[in-house]
């Protein structure tokens, strides 16, 4: 009889205590979770500042270790603000904002060189923000040399040395062999054909500006063509896409006629400006081809999507067509639609080839030797990498690494 109340009491205590324990556990866990979301995120650590290399002193790189609530923890970080001041006590202004997961930012906002700057990285979430400790000072230093371009400088010096060597070699009167370029050999034939047919020659110097080296190469070729045309008493039509190119082309053609001893044969209306709109230019040139029916079309310079429209229209008129460009995407179109095509470097060799001036030919020889050097390097690089030897490839990075250190 006496044991029954004990058992009842024990059961009653257990039945009350267990739910209470569960309740306490739930409340405690919930509180812990809600407190992780309610509090601001943990700040970032290890803020490091570095002057951006190889620049004119306009940038500082800031890096940090991610907030514990970004890579893990509450995972509720929105992003980071990079704040800058000229004093460690502030005031700090936001100069850059980056999204979560970012551990680096570059400050390029109105930095003065040789001024002390202090930074703090502020991590943000929906409930607030937490700044890091102040890092600094750091200065944006102006560099005297862009070390990132050291390899380019070395290659340029080697190339220029080769070019100058062969130019001076040619100056001494040494004969240099230059392989035949069918497209340029056909120029005389093309001009002669136009003369026999009594029809003009159309010369399109591309649709780029004079700052483009391909346009300069085209103008150089136009100089030789103008002289030949003047000698044959033929007309050359030069429609231009760019007004500056037009003024240069006018001068070059005029001088060509003058050099041939026929200044009166030059007609300034034959070298004219059309438009700087790509397809309007194509429409105009196509119109000239269809109406004037030139015996020869020369498309030499920089071309884009209009290349095939021009070349196919020219082919439909029955003209001899010679094209030349270094625009890789347009070369197949010209090859398909033109009789002769100057591919890439041949465009730049054309002026020397046509004039046969020893100094110009010398530079072509230098170009060939540099190409041999490059081919040799590529071949050795491929073979060594195939055998798992990386030292040859690393050799090209060595000067950079030495100077950086």
């Amino acid at each position: 009889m006496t044991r029954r109340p004990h058992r009842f009491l024990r059961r009653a205590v257990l039945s009350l205590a267990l739910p209470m324990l569960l309740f306490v556990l739930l409340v405690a866990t919930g509180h812990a979770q809600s407190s992780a979301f309610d509090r601001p995120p943990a700040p970032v650590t290890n803020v490091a500042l570095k002057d951006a290399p190889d620049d004119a002193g306009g940038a500082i790189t800031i890096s940090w270790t991610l907030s514990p609530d970004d890579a893990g923890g509450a995972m509720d970080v929105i992003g980071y603000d990079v704040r800058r001041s000229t004093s460690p006590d502030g005031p700090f202004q936001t100069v850059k904002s980056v999204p979560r997961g970012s551990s680096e930012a570059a400050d390029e906002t109105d930095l003065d060189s040789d001024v002390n700057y202090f930074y703090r990285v502020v991590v943000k979430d929906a409930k607030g923000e937490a700044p890091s400790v102040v890092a600094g000072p750091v200065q944006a230093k102006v560099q005297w040399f862009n070390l990132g371009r050291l390899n380019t400088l070395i290659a340029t010096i080697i190339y220029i040395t080769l070019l100058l060597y062969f130019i001076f070699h040619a100056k001494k009167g040494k004969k240099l062999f230059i392989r035949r370029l069918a497209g340029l050999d056909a120029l005389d034939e093309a001009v002669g054909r136009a003369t026999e047919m009594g029809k003009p020659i159309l010369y399109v110097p591309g649709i780029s500006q004079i700052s483009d080296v391909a346009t300069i190469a085209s103008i150089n070729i136009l100089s030789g063509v103008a002289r030949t045309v003047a000698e044959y008493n033929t007309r050359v039509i030069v429609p231009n896409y760019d007004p500056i190119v037009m003024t240069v082309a006018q001068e070059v053609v005029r001088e060509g006629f003058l050099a041939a001893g026929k200044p009166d044969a030059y007609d300034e209306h034959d070298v004219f400006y059309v438009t700087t709109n790509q397809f309007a230019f194509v429409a105009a040139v196509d119109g000239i081809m269809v109406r004037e029916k030139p015996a020869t079309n020369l498309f030499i310079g920089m071309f884009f999507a209009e290349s095939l429209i021009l070349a196919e229209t020219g082919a439909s008129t029955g003209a001899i067509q010679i094209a030349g460009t270094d625009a890789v995407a347009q070369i197949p179109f010209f090859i398909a639609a033109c009789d002769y095509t100057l591919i890439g470097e041949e465009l730049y060799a054309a002026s020397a080839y046509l004039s046969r001036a020893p100094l110009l030919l010398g530079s072509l020889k230098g170009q060939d030797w540099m190409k041999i050097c490059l081919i040799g390097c590529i071949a050795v690089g491929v073979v060594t990498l195939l055998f798992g030897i990386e030292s040859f490839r690393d050799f090209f990075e060595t000067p950079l690494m030495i100077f950086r250190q």
Partner: protein
Amino acid sequence: MRREIPLIITFVCGITMIVQFFIPHEPFGSMKSYFQQSYMIIAAFAMILGICNLTKLHVNKIRYKRPHWGYSIVLLAGLAGMTIPGLFVGAIKEGGIFDFLFKNVHVPMQSTMFSLLAFFVASASYRAFRARTLDAALLLVAGFIVMLGRAPIGDAMTSFLPEGGQMSDVANWIMAVPNTAGQRAIMMGAGLGVVATSLRVILGIERSYLGGD
């Protein structure tokens, strides 16, 4: 002096641009943007020169009734029709006459010219793909594989082959290996040509752009 002054200007500007490429320090650091801005100013004035040249050419064509002078009337009408609204009647704001002409006349005509490319690709392909020589035959085969490989029918035809040997895989290989190798070779040759031509111009060896030797 007519030749020497341009040569000196070319030499000084050329050397300055080379130096600024390697030296970020002032005064070289800002040289590039200075030259670019100068070029923009010259280009703006040259545009006036270009329009004057165009107008003079076509006015003369109409005046002397040269062949096809009727087209010159269309050209001058188009020039005036776009320039006057653009400069004086509502400028270039949205909904204005210029905007209307640009969207409803200029853009459709431009698209029409661009669309011609599709037809010209077909006619050029027909000419290029006639397998008369070994080169043309190789081009034909490569083109055939790439075209089939880019369409679902290519893989459907070769579905019995193992992974890596299907039409799209062969097409991708052609584009990524022989095609890229060829393009890079052309680009490297052109790059060397650009440097050599630039050097010839800077050193005054190449003077054709000045109108003669």
